[in-house]
Structure formats: structure tokens, C-alpha cells
């Protein structure tokens, strides 16, 4: 294993709560190359040619195992596109922790575009956690453009938690999913932008099979002059149920655009979209101030709770 420097270790902590080498299967990518990798009896990680990513094979019926594949970037000017493909065997039940941390102290942009494809076998269940984090005071931007494709076979389940709280200047996140009969997709996105940041989140979920369901919920806070766009579309082509929700707090001179999209191609497709954008309610601030908090402390509590 290559030794990580202290900044890389700090980024690993932020995105994957990792203090050292994780248990189970893992691949740690640092500045464009693999720094450490381990497979287990049930989970095999195979590098693609030319360092363009990895294939992760999870054997059928693998239970209670985890895969960590964090990425850290600390070199200004580095741009990379990485393809990671997950093949999840039937009836497996695993947790996958991804995430990317960029520390850019230099003048050039640093960019990581991770394309993750999930092939979720029949009856399999995954919990996927992806955290994005940026730091460093260089003038170069920290850019992340993650692409997630999820192909779900019958009765499979995917719970995805996407978090970006700090420091990423520019991000376009595109998530597409195709669900067969009985498959269930749950997405929880939490986002906070500040400064002049820009974050675009696009979801296109196809409910193709009978009894499939999707629940995509985004909670976000836009501060300073930042801009967010939440563009979520659910296409129901069978008896199915779909729900998307965008719940946002707007502050300062922030801007938020919510674009609801529902397409029903079947009479028994039940699709719902909810969107609410608003500033912090004055009564909420006053209530916490009557408990002795300053206005700023009250605001922090409300935002922390909202994004928890």
C-alpha cells in the first residue's frame, strides 16, 4: 500500500469516516492511481485496463459485507474520468461506501468524474453511501461530476444516500435507474452550497416492472450566491409507485430551480412530486432564540437539523 499524506488522510475521514484501512473489500484511489486495494472471498475488485477504474464483483448471497471505494485528489490541475462497475449477485446484501474528496490549493481546476454502474441482481439489496467534499484555498475549482446508473432486476432494493455539504465548486450529478418488477429504489440526497457554487442534480428513473417503486428525496440549502437545480423525472410504464420530493431552504442571494417531471405510461402508475422552496421561517428562529440561542446559532441548528 502506498503511504497517504496527511491531507489525503483527512479527506478520507471526511468522505468515508475512515481512520485507516477499512475492513472488508476496498480500493483507495489517490491522485489518479490506486493506493491500496483488497478483495475478499465474496467480493472481488478487478482493475480495468489503463487505470480507468475497477470492476467490483459481489458473489450471490453475500451477506453483511461492505465495500469501500473512496477517491482523494490533492493535485491541482488533475482531471480524471473513472468507470467503476458493480456486479451484485442475486440475494446479496451489502453496503457500498464511495465518495470523493478534493483538496485543491493550486491555481488550476481539479476534477473527478466518477461513473458508477450498478447491476443489481434478483432479490439483492444494496446500501450505497456517497459523500463529496472539497477543501483547499487555491483559486482552482474543485469539480465533481458523478454519473450513477442503476439497473435493478426483479425484487432488488437499492438505498442510496448522496451527500455534498461543503467545498465543491461545481457539480453535475446525473443518476439514472431502470427498475424491473418488484424492485425498490430509495434515494436521499443532502446538499448544501455556498459562495458561488453551482450544483445540478438530475434523476431519471424508469419504473418498468409491475410493483416497482421509487422514492427520491432531496433536502438542500443554498447560501450566499450559489445556484442549485433539482431535475427529477420518474417514468412509470407499469403498475408502480413513484415519489420525488425537493425540499429546500434558500438564503442570502441563493437561487434554486426545481423541475418536477412525471411521465405515466400506464393507468396504474401512481406518481407524485412535491417541491417546496422557502427561507427559514421567522417563528423557527424566534422559538430557538427564546431558548437562549443567538439568531446565528438558531440558523445553524435549523440547517443542521434539516440536513441531518
Amino acid at each position, binding site marked *: 500500500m502506498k503511504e497517504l499524506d496527511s491531507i489525503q488522510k483527512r479527506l478520507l475521514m471526511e468522505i468515508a469516516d475512515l481512520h485507516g484501512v477499512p475492513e472488508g473489500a476496498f480500493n483507495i484511489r489517490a491522485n489518479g492511481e490506486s493506493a491500496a486495494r483488497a478483495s475478499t472471498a465474496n467480493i472481488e475488485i478487478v482493475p480495468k485496463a489503463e487505470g480507468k477504474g475497477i470492476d467490483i464483483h459481489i458473489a450471490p448471497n453475500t451477506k453483511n459485507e461492505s465495500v469501500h471505494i473512496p477517491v482523494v485528489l490533492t493535485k491541482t490541475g488533475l482531471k480524471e474520468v473513472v468507470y467503476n462497475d458493480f456486479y451484485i449477485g442475486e440475494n446479496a446484501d451489502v453496503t457500498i461506501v464511495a465518495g470523493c474528496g478534493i483538496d485543491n490549493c493550486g491555481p488550476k481546476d481539479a476534477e473527478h468524474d466518477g461513473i458508477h454502474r450498478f447491476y443489481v441482481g434478483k432479490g439483492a439489496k444494496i446500501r450505497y453511501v456517497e459523500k463529496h467534499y472539497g477543501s483547499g484555498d487555491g483559486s482552482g475549482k474543485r469539480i465533481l461530476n458523478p454519473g450513477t446508473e442503476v439497473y435493478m432486476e426483479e425484487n432488488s432494493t437499492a438505498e442510496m444516500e448522496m451527500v455534498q455539504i461543503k467545498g465543491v465548486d461545481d457539480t453535475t450529478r446525473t443518476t439514472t435507474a431502470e427498475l424491473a418488477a418488484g424492485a425498490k429504489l430509495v434515494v436521499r440526497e443532502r446538499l448544501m452550497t455556498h459562495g458561488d457554487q453551482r450544483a445540478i442534480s438530475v434523476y431519471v428513473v424508469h419504473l418498468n416492472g409491475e410493483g416497482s417503486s421509487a422514492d427520491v428525496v432531496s433536502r438542500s440549502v443554498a447560501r450566499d450566491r450559489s445556484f442549485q437545480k433539482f431535475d427529477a423525472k420518474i417514468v412509470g410504464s407499469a403498475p408502480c409507485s413513484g415519489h420525488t420530493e425537493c*425540499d429546500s431552504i434558500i438564503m442570502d442571494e441563493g437561487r434554486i430551480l426545481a423541475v418536477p417531471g412525471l411521465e405515466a405510461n400506464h393507468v396504474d402508475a401512481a406518481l407524485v412530486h412535491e417541491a417546496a422552496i422557502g427561507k427559514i421561517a421567522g*417563528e423557527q428562529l424566534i422559538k430557538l432564540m*427564546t*431558548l437562549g440561542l443567538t439568531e446565528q446559532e438558531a440558523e445553524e*441548528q435549523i440547517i443542521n437539523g434539516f440536513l441531518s
Partner: protein
Amino acid sequence: MLELQHLSFRVDTEGQDKEILEDINLLIPNGKLIVITGPNGGGKSTTARIIAGIEKPTEGRILLDGEDITELGVTERARAGIAYAFQQPVRFKGIKVRDLVRLAAGKKISTGEACSYLSAVGLCARDYIDREVNASLSGGELKRIEIATVLARGSRLSVFDEPEAGIDLWSFQNLIEVFQNMRKNIRDSSIVIISHQERILNIADEIVVLVGGKIQKQGNRDEILPELLSSGAARQVCRGAV
């Protein structure tokens, strides 16, 4: 001890000054439970909001234990020892009951301690401590949590704005017990409750009747309550269920 001196509050409605409170003089001594009652629109809630610092009086002074707090904001008044329970409690997405009680206590408290405040208002603490203070809670549940946050503050002056509103009959007796217990342990603090309820008026040391922005009557319970019940004002006092 809280003192309101020549307190007035005017608002501008459609270009006209409207007097909500007019020259209110009120002394709330330590060791006393005071109930402010009167018809709707009489200025009761405004008085409570002015005490908490949410509204600023147009004229007059507010003294807490002799110290002029008229110019202090909501946060400073809270820190000076004033607690305030909202008539319509606020909901928060993502903030748990546990967080709110801890913020109210102003320090780290154990789960057991947090639960004791919830139990005191008749909530099964274990079922509520990790719930979010959001739309999933009923009005009555929220109201009881609101009262629990005031208990957790342990303040010199606690103000409750219509605590019975939205609380079901079964919980109402429990609420009376909460106030009786507070009254027992009152020591150097005082309690102000805004209410129409006869059973709350019944536990008052003193009753203040606020009508049309002015104090109409003020005195010991035994003196004021019979008058209230026998006069026309009785119609304003709710004797039955909430």
C-alpha cells in the same frame, strides 16, 4: 419578579394607529402564579410576546428583578431568565425532541433527564425522545413538547400562552398537575399563564383581566374568580372540556 410600567403597544393598520395595549401596569411577584384572562383580542398574547421580547412596546418599561430589560432582544431576555411557551408551537424538520429539550436546558443532559421533562407533560418519553419535531406530531403532542421545553429551562419567569389550546381532555388534567407541580417548586421564580380555562384560573394566586388592551380587574383569585364567573365575563371563561 417582573414589572410592566406604563406599557403601550400600537400597530399601524391601513394607515391608522390601533392601540393594542394601553398603559398597562402590572407587577408579577416572585413565588406567584398569575393567570391573565379576558376576551379574544384583548391583548393577552401581545403582552406575552412583549415580555418575551418578540414585540417591542411603543411606550413603557419592563423590569426583571429591578433591571430594565426593555431594550433587550429575545436571546438576551431568554438568557436573563425568561421562558416562553408559544400558543402555536413551531415545527422543525430534522430537529429531534431530544435536541430541542437539550437546547432548552442549555447544556448537555442525559437521556433520563430529557425523558423526565417529557414524562412530566404526560408523554411516554421513550416513544418521543427520538421523534422529529415535525408535521408527524399532532397539535396536542407538539403543545406538550413545547411545555416540556419551558420546564427544561428552569427560568425565573415562565410565560405560557394558552397552554390548554389543542390539548385533549384526557391530557388536560395532566396539564393542571404540571402547573401545580411548577407552582410547588416555584421558590424565587414566577409563572404567567394566559388562559380562558376555569380550571387554570382555579390554580392561580392572582388573576388579571385584560379587556380591550386595558387591565379591567386585578387581584387575588378568591376575589376575582367569583366575580368573573357570575358576571357577563363568565361567558368568556370556558368551564367544560377544552
